[in-house]
């Protein structure tokens, strides 16, 4: 039988650490530039604030927003790992049996993501007058006040802090709980063998998928949709799912390639890469499908209340390039680069596309979260790059650390032989 164990060795740790340090340095330079740099953004905004009567823009707001983007983004990759794992069981997939430990390991980030979510939510919303979520502004609900907003007040039954917190905690209890349950069964299978664990995991996976079908949409409404508090779109939950899913697939593929190149995963050959490549290719198109469904229907109907969302993004100076870049990186590039059979079977192409896809979908989340929180002050700069690098390195440390603690191959998986002889 195949016995493999990933050694999270010092050189790998060092590389990740270097990335993290680079992130911290960039972040610090970014903050310094934002304070003293020649941009003068803060200054201008400050004056504008006096005229308009709004709160001044401060770099710390930008930092909170960036932290939130990364929270949502990396949390998404982690939960997609668990989801992908579950899907393989309910779909009775054989080809993937040899790589299943990688998506499972992504779930290790979930408990940390939960703490970070609660922490950033609390710090970003309760430490100053400014709110990450517009609906948290209490003056909106004061019917006699100047800021009263009838539409937002109408949503108060759903958008209120206690209920929001309850929902957030519920999601994490479910997600983290199922991650541990599935992991437990997988590890027990390693020791005891037999088909019974496979059947148990099919059952657990089915329950998880039902719960995830609901919580993926509601968490997307909570964490992202409600930032643009007036705006609404029924496809939004599925759009976020698509974005998370393709990012998760690209991450799994990259880690598989990384391990393969370092001499692990002897079971994996170009046939498995081909299947992973097909997944990234297909779900890039699926993401574009949900993107287009949302954009086109709103654009076509031209209802001001809905169209404003795209006016703010497509026809504004800070976001226009990001808007079109999003589509180019996440649709045109993967579509063209992964079109051929060879591109999906060779690691070079796959690596390039997976990095692009991960970067592109980070941009996608940036574009969903920033305009509603920072308005015209949003920029893509060193602070964004720095926080993303810090998060990425922390994420990798946690995932690799988790991966090094479990056998890399599920040696008693009933489909393992199918996976080993997979040929397409």
């Amino acid at each position, binding site marked *: 039988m195949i016995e493999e164990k990933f050694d999270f060795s010092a050189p790998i740790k060092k590389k990740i650490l270097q990335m993290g340090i680079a992130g911290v340095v960039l972040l610090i330079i970014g903050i310094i530039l934002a304070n003293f740099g020649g941009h003068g953004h803060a200054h201008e905004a400050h004056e504008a604030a006096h005229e308009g009567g709004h709160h001044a823009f401060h770099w710390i707001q930008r930092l909170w927003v960036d932290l939130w983007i990364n929270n949502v983004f990396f949390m998404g990759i982690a939960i997609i790992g668990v989801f992908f794992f579950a899907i393989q069981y309910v779909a009775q997939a054989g080809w993937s049996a040899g790589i299943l430990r990688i998506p499972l390991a992504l779930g290790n980030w979930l408990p940390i993501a939960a703490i970070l979510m609660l922490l950033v939510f609390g710090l970003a919303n309760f430490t100053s007058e400014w709110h990450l979520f517009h609906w948290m502004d209490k003056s909106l609900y004061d019917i006699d006040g100047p800021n009263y907003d009838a539409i937002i007040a109408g949503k108060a039954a759903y958008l209120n802090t206690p209920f929001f917190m309850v929902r957030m905690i519920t999601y994490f209890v479910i997600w983290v709980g199922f991650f541990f349950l599935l992991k437990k069964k997988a590890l027990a299978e390693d020791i005891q063998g037999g088909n019974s664990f496979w059947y148990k995991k099919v059952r657990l996976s089915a329950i998880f998928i039902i719960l995830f079908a609901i919580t993926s949409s509601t968490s997307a409404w909570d964490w992202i949709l409600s930032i643009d508090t007036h705006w609404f779109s*029924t496809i939004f939950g599925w759009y976020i799912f698509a974005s998370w899913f393709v990012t998760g697939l690209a991450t799994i593929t990259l880690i598989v390639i990384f391990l393969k190149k370092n001499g692990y995963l002897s079971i994996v050959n170009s046939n498995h890469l081909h299947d992973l490549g*097909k997944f990234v290719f297909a779900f890039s198109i699926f993401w574009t499908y949900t993107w287009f469904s949302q954009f086109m229907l709103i654009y076509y109907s031209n209802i001001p209340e809905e169209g404003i969302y795209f006016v703010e993004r497509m026809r504004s100076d800070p976001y226009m390039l990001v808007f079109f870049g999003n589509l180019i990186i996440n649709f045109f590039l993967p579509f063209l680069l992964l079109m051929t059979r060879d591109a999906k079977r060779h690691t070079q192409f796959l690596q390039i596309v997976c990095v692009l896809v991960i970067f592109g979908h980070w941009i996608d989340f940036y574009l969903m979260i920033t305009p509603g929180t920072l308005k015209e002050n949003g920029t893509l700069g060193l602070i964004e790059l720095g926080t993303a690098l810090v998060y990425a390195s922390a994420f990798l440390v946690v995932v690799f650390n988790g991966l090094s603690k479990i056998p890399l191959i599920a040696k008693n998986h009933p489909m393992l032989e199918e996976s080993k002889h997979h*040929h397409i």
Partner: protein
Amino acid sequence: MQVTSTVRNPLVTGGKTIHDITEDVCRQVEGKPTKSWMLVLSMALGALTIGGYALAMTLWEGIGMWGLNKTVGWAWDITNFVWWVGIGHAGTLISAILLLFRQKWRTSINRAAEAMTIFAVICALLFPVIHTGRPWLTLYWPIPLPNAFGSLWVNFHSPLVWDFFAISTYFTVSLVFWYIGLIPDFATIRDRATNKISKAVYGALSFGWDGAAKTWSRYESVSLILAGLATPLVLSVHTIVSMDFATSVIPGWHTTIFPPYFVAGAIFSGFAMVLTLMIITRKVYKLEDYITISHIEMMNIIIIVTGSIVGVAYLTELFIAWYSGVEYEQYAFLNRATGPYWWSYAIMMTCNVVSPQLFWFKKIRTNIVATFILSIVVNIGMWFERFVIIVTSLHRDYVPSSWAMFHPTLYDMGVYLFSFGLFFTLFLLFAKFFPVINMAEVKSILKSSSEKRN
């Protein structure tokens, strides 16, 4: 080397050999029509005749024969159209998407499902054609020809024109896909034929298939290419059908979830119809060893998944209607659930969301009778879903003086009956004269996935 895990159920039971497959499937094509087949065919032809009268009257007298009015200008016709198009999704999904996902169980059901797809799309196309009132001009209107009668082009902004392109492309590709799959089987029948007519007819249909290794290699390549082309087409068809509604600004129609939700609903109803037809076919033709309980269970699982996706979409629409704070949107949904058509909403919710959940019980999803009943329930539900979306969104216009109800006439029902007659006539002819199971492809999985004779 191909390995099959011990957790997989066999796809062909009863220890069948390659020769048994040929015998079991060809027997139906080669034998004389049975009495029961004749009886059912005459029933289908009867429905076609009665429905044909309703259709003729509609064409002669005009669309006024239907229950439409100024407020509800679309009702049964478009409901039937969307319903039939939806049913026409399962076949190509099975043959294309399941081929890409290497699902071996598709081989026993793809032939009949694809046939069903093609006939369902034909039935669907009837309704917009009839609704134009002058079907003899219909082909001329949506095609963007330089207009000899005036300076008008078709309105490219209209999703109805997109529909024309989407469905005609889908129909063509599905037909080609289905036919390519039939060629090796026609050759088998040709080679076995004992009389001259069969030999000539099946010989012509099989395009001189010689069964050489190279021919098979081409067959596989073409199947894969067609699967790649058909997959986006399956998804695009119902996407564009949903846009017939979603591009409008009618509350209850204009909602961004429509494209994927319509696609899921279409697969849902398509699989239900496949089950309805296959459960009868396997019984009558004694194909229980090819279309096994595992096949039925797989299809039932797809029904749970797609039915639940549809259920999540219903709840999302309801929630966002409230969340949006748009009073028109809120009223549209309140009116659906509690207005004069509340009963159709209740039927939709019960049949589409609640009843498929019964398939969570293994006892129910592996029970033939329960599956048969539920498959019909699902299609009743999906008909009502389209009725609810279309009629309840229209009948309460913005100005209360324009509020109206839709009452179907006998002619509405008659034309619907006509489509049933047409569908079953075509399906029965298919089931008699064409091999209902793809023999060649079932043979290809026999070695890896069959139950061996003890």
